């Protein structure tokens, strides 16, 4: 589904240049839910922008379904880290969610229905007529998630999508992502700084190094599904995996299996 080979990205040039990514290789299978964790400033958002074709990486290549990414590919949706700026303030919440659907063969009524359905799924059934500025940060974030969900992309990229919601909503949204993935066969790449979350949600967790980012750990998560916020998290495999990811993030050696 997604192939990243020898990806590098340098911001700027000369002595002030910043090497954000260097020699990063990664492949994601169809239908996989991959979590990426890494320290702040590692280059995670830069990686995501390269995948989405929003920036042209300075080296290496990204392929989606075999096709080299040059511009923003079709059939891809992004939930940005800076969710509030990614919503359009001049549009109602429902219009925000429905707008990308213009790319699809849907008439106005279908777009509206799809938007409403997506808003319901994130618990914002009543918010459609409001404007983004009338919502709290957590609600805006859920609108951004609803917008990506409504689009039903083949590949969904999420950049710390649950950053500003309360713990309860966060768990609900984690389960929602798992559920959506089950229903719609999406491939999802989710960036997070929360180690527990990466293990709970992911089929696989990739750990990035400090800048310049490259892959330092790649773990398969073999936990029973459907996952459950209580029982999964208390399972010894979960506890073990969490510790392993934690060590990688801190740059410690992996414990022998």
């Amino acid at each position, binding site marked *: 589904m997604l192939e990243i080979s020898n990806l590098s990205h340098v911001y700027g040039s000369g002595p002030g240049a910043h090497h954000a990514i260097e020699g990063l290789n990664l492949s994601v299978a169809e239908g996989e839910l991959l979590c990426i964790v890494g320290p702040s400033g590692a280059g995670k958002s830069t990686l995501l922008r390269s995948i989405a074709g929003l920036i042209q990486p300075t080296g290496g290549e990204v392929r989606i379904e075999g096709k080299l990414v040059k511009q923003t590919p079709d059939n891809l949706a992004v939930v940005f880290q*800076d969710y509030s700026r990614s919503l359009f303030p*001049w549009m109602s919440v429902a219009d925000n969610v429905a707008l990308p659907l213009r790319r699809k063969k849907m008439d106005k009524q279908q777009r509206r229905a799809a938007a409403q359905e997506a808003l319901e799924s994130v618990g914002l059934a009543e918010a459609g007529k409001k404007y983004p500025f009338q919502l709290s940060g957590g609600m805006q974030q859920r609108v951004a998630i609803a917008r990506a969900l409504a689009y039903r992309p083949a590949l969904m990229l999420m950049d710390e999508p649950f950053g500003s919601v309360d713990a309860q909503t966060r768990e609900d949204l984690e389960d929602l992502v798992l559920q959506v993935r089950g229903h719609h066969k999406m491939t999802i790449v989710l960036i997070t700084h929360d180690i527990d979350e990466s293990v709970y949600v992911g089929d696989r967790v990739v750990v990035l190094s400090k800048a310049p980012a490259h892959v330092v750990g790649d773990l398969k998560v073999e936990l029973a599904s459907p996952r459950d916020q209580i029982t999964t998290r208390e399972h010894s495999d979960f506890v073990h995996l969490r510790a392993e990811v934690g060590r990688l993030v801190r740059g410690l050696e992996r414990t022998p299996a």
Partner: protein
Amino acid sequence: MISARILRGVAGVAGFLIVGELTIRFGLTDDVVFPPPSLVLWEAMGLLADPVFLSGVAITLTNWALGLIASVVIAVPLGVLLGSLASVERATRPLLEFLRPIPSVAIIPLAILLIPVDSMMKVSVIVYASLWPVLINTLYGMHDVDPLAKESLRSFGFGAIDVLRRVSLPSAAPFMLTGVRIAAGIALILAVSAELLAGGTGGIGVFVIQAGSGNRTDLILAATFWAGIIGMVANSLLVLAERRLFHWHQARTGATT
């Protein structure tokens, strides 16, 4: 809140008029002929029944509206174009910075010489003067568009034209309207100034010249009073339109309504 503000405004105006009235009636020596506010207001009411004055107002307002519309038609597309093409803007910037601070009234004598058709000359100077605020504000609005909002739309596979139409233009629209509001005030100044300098068959400025040649300071002030009222009403209507249409923008910039 609002009624208290209006009350204070009314009190201020009334106080000013009373002080003016008393100063002129009792404070000034007899050799200064300056009409007291009561007389000016009385004459101003009388003008409402004066067909010469009313047709003059119609002429001035027609020039004003034509000039304003033409300047919007020219300056908005130009501003959008310059705002989207950084290289073109950089090339034209010095020229703009030179032309902009030239007081527009100063070009009226030139326009009188160059454009023989009276009404066309008047409309032209109005267009020239109103161009700047609309152009500068449009440019400002285009620069203010959040790059992340553009990226959001782009990430769903929309192209440059869609991003312009669905993100840049709506995002810059409040700035454009602010430019039009500023231009409306300037256009009125130019409409009257051109009449004062060039005369003509009718207009508020022409009326003022004629009143002046008859030594009727009261009529000059009465006509000026209506010019001020027209400017104030136009400004208020446009402020109202800004608040109605762009409440999301007011919320974003933290303006109180």
